[in-house]
C-alpha cells in the first residue's frame, strides 16, 4: 500500500486520526477547517466509525465526552470562535480525566475575526482555556508530515494520561498541500478498564467532576497537577535548527517557524549566525532547552502571528536572562521570509555593534 500522498492539511488531520484508531468524530462546520469534518463524514463510516454533525460546538464537545467515556478514540475539530464554545466541554474532559483530541485550525480574532491564518489562540490553548485548575497538552505541527505524525502522538498522550489534548494549527497549515507519508493504521488498541460499558455483573462506575467536599476537591486538583508535572517531564517536544553555532535565536512555532527557517537560510548567506528553537509542544513549553541556550546566547527574537502571546512563555522561561525582541503580525497577515530576515539581520547588527 502506497502511503505517501499529496493532500491538504485538513485532510491529513482526518486520515492521521483514522490511522491512529479514531473511531468517532463530532463537529460543527467553521472555516478554515471544514475539510476535516468532510473527510471524516466520508471515511469514518467506511472504517467502522461514527461521524455526526452536531447542532453546535457545545453539543459536539459534549458528544465527545459521551464517546470518550465509553473508551473509544474520539476527535473533534474547530477554528477559533468554535474552540471558545468548546472550552466548557474541554474543562469537563479535564475534570472527568477523559482522553480526547481537539484540533484548532486558528483564524484571526477576537470575535468572528476573519478566516485567515493567525496564532492568536495561544493563550487560550496553553492556559487551560476553560474554567478551573487544569492544563491541556498542546501540539503545534509545523508541516503536514508533522500533522500526520503528531496526530497519532496526540491520541497516544491523551490515552496515556487520560486527558484532553489539543493540536494547534492555523488556516495556512489546514489549507496548504504537501506530500505526506502516513504510518500504518493502528490495530488492537487495549481495552480501557475505566470506561463506561454498563456494569454487567461487576460494580457500577460513576464519572463525575462535581466534588463538593473541599478537601477532596483539593486532593483531586493536586492529583491532576501531579499528572501535568509528569507530562511536562516526559512529553515536552521541540526542534533545534542551526543552533550549534548560532549567536541569535529565533523562537517560533507552526507556520511562523517554517517562515523563520526560510529567513534563517537567507540571513545565513549574509553571514548572520541565526538559529531556531521551535516548540513542538506549546504546553508543556520547552523551558529547559531555552534556558540551556541562554547560557551561551544573548539574543532571542520571537516571531508570532499575533500581537505577542508565546513571547510571555519565552520571558518566563528565560527568567531575566538574555534579551528578547518580539515581532508579530496579527489579524490573519502571514509574514514573509524577507520580513523575518530583516528583523534577524537588524538584531544581529545591534549585537555586533554592542560587542565592539
Amino acid at each position, binding site marked *: 500500500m502506497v502511503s505517501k500522498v499529496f493532500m491538504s492539511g485538513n485532510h491529513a488531520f482526518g486520515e492521521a486520526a483514522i490511522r491512529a484508531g479514531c473511531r468517532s468524530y463530532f463537529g460543527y462546520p467553521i472555516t478554515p477547517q471544514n475539510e476535516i469534518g468532510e473527510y471524516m463524514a466520508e471515511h469514518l463510516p467506511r472504517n467502522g466509525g461514527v461521524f455526526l454533525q452536531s447542532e453546535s460546538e457545545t453539543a459536539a464537545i459534549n458528544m465527545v465526552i459521551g464517546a470518550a467515556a465509553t473508551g473509544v478514540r474520539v476527535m473533534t475539530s474547530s477554528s477559533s470562535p468554535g474552540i471558545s464554545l468548546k472550552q466548557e466541554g474541554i474543562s469537563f474532559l479535564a475534570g472527568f480525566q477523559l482522553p480526547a483530541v481537539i484540533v484548532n485550525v486558528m483564524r484571526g480574532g477576537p470575535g468572528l475575526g476573519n478566516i485567515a491564518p493567525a496564532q492568536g489562540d495561544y493563550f487560550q490553548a496553553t492556559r487551560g482555556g476553560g474554567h478551573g485548575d487544569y492544563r491541556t497538552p498542546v501540539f503545534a505541527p509545523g508541516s503536514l508530515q508533522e500533522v500526520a505524525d503528531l496526530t497519532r502522538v496526540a491520541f497516544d498522550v491523551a490515552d496515556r494520561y487520560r486527558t484532553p489534548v489539543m493540536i494547534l494549527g492555523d488556516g495556512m497549515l489546514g489549507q496548504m498541500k504537501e506530500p505526506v507519508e502516513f504510518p500504518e493504521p493502528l490495530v488492537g488498541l487495549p481495552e480501557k478498564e475505566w470506561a463506561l460499558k454498563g*456494569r454487567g455483573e461487576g460494580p457500577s462506575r460513576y464519572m463525575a467532576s*462535581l466534588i463538593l467536599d473541599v478537601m477532596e476537591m483539593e486532593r483531586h486538583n493536586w492529583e491532576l497537577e501531579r499528572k501535568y508535572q509528569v507530562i511536562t517531564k516526559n512529553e515536552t517536544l521541540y526542534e533545534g535548527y542551526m543552533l550549534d553555532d548560532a549567536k541569535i535565536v529565533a523562537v517560533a512555532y507552526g507556520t511562523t517557524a517554517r517562515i523563520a527557517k526560510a529567513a534563517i537560510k537567507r540571513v545565513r548567506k549574509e553571514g548572520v549566525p541565526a538559529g531556531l528553537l521551535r516548540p513542538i509542544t506549546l504546553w508543556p513549553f520547552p523551558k529547559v532547552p531555552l534556558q540551556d541556550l541562554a547560557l551561551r546566547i544573548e539574543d532571542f527574537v520571537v516571531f508570532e502571528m499575533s500581537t505577542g502571546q508565546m513571547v510571555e512563555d519565552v520571558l518566563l522561561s528565560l527568567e531575566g536572562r538574555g534579551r528578547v525582541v518580539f515581532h508579530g503580525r496579527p489579524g490573519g497577515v502571514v509574514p514573509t521570509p524577507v520580513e523575518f530576515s530583516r528583523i534577524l539581520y537588524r538584531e544581529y547588527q545591534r549585537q555586533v555593534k554592542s560587542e565592539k
Partner: protein
Amino acid sequence: MKLLNKWPIYYKRDVVTHYCSGCGHGVVHRIIAELLEEMDLGKRAVCVNPAGCAVLAYKYFDIDMIESAHGRGTAIATGIKRVKPELFVFTYQGDGDLSAIGTAETIHSANRGEQITVVFINNAVYGMTGGQMAPTTLLGQKTTTTPGGRDPKFDGYPLHITDMIAQFPGVIYAERTAINGPAGIQRTKKAIRTAFQVQVDGLGYSIIEVLSACPTNWKMSTEDSFKWINEVMVKEFVPGVLTDKRGGAA
C-alpha cells in the same frame, strides 16, 4: 408471607437521602430502579444525570453513570449511544437543565430521533440554586427572581417543550405524568416503562415529563404541594400521551 415491596437491585441501600421531604426525585428514582430490574436493563444501562439537585443521583443508582454540564445531557447521551448502540442510555434532567440552558441539545437530539430515553422532571422552579424562575414556572408563580409572580410582560410564558418536541417525526413516544398520589405514581411507572421499551425496540427517541413537587422552593407543605400540582399545575401542563408513533405512523 409474600414480600410485596422488594428492594430493587439497582437502587443502593444504606444511603441517606439528600432530597428534601416531599421532593419527587426519590419516587422517580425508585420507579427507574424497579424498571431497570423488571426489564433486565440495568447491566447494560448508562444514565446521564444533570446539573441540579439530581446531579447526585449516582448516590442512589447502582448502574454506570456520568454527570453532565448544565443542559448537555442529551449531547453526552448521543455520544454514548452512537458509539455503543448496544447500551441502554437515558438522561435524567430537570426543567432548568432541559428547557433553558439545554434547549438546543434537547431539541436537536429529539429531532435527530436519537435512540435514547429522557426522563424530564418538571417542578416549575430551579431547585438546587435556590428557587429561581424556570422556563416552566407558571404565570403568577412566585420565585426568588419573580418576587411578584411570573409576569408574561417581563418573563414570557411557561415553555411547553415536551409538547413542542412531541411534534418531531423522530420522537416516538412522549407522555406527561404527575407525582401527585398513588395513581400518578403508577401512571408514571407505566409511562417510563413504555418509553424505555421504545429504546429497547430501537424505534427512536422517547421522553416522559413528570410533574413533581418542590415543597422547599415552592414554600409549601408536602400536602399543599400535592394539592398545587393537582389543582394548578396540571391545568398548565396537562398530563397525558403527547405522541405515540409506535405503530410506525410518524
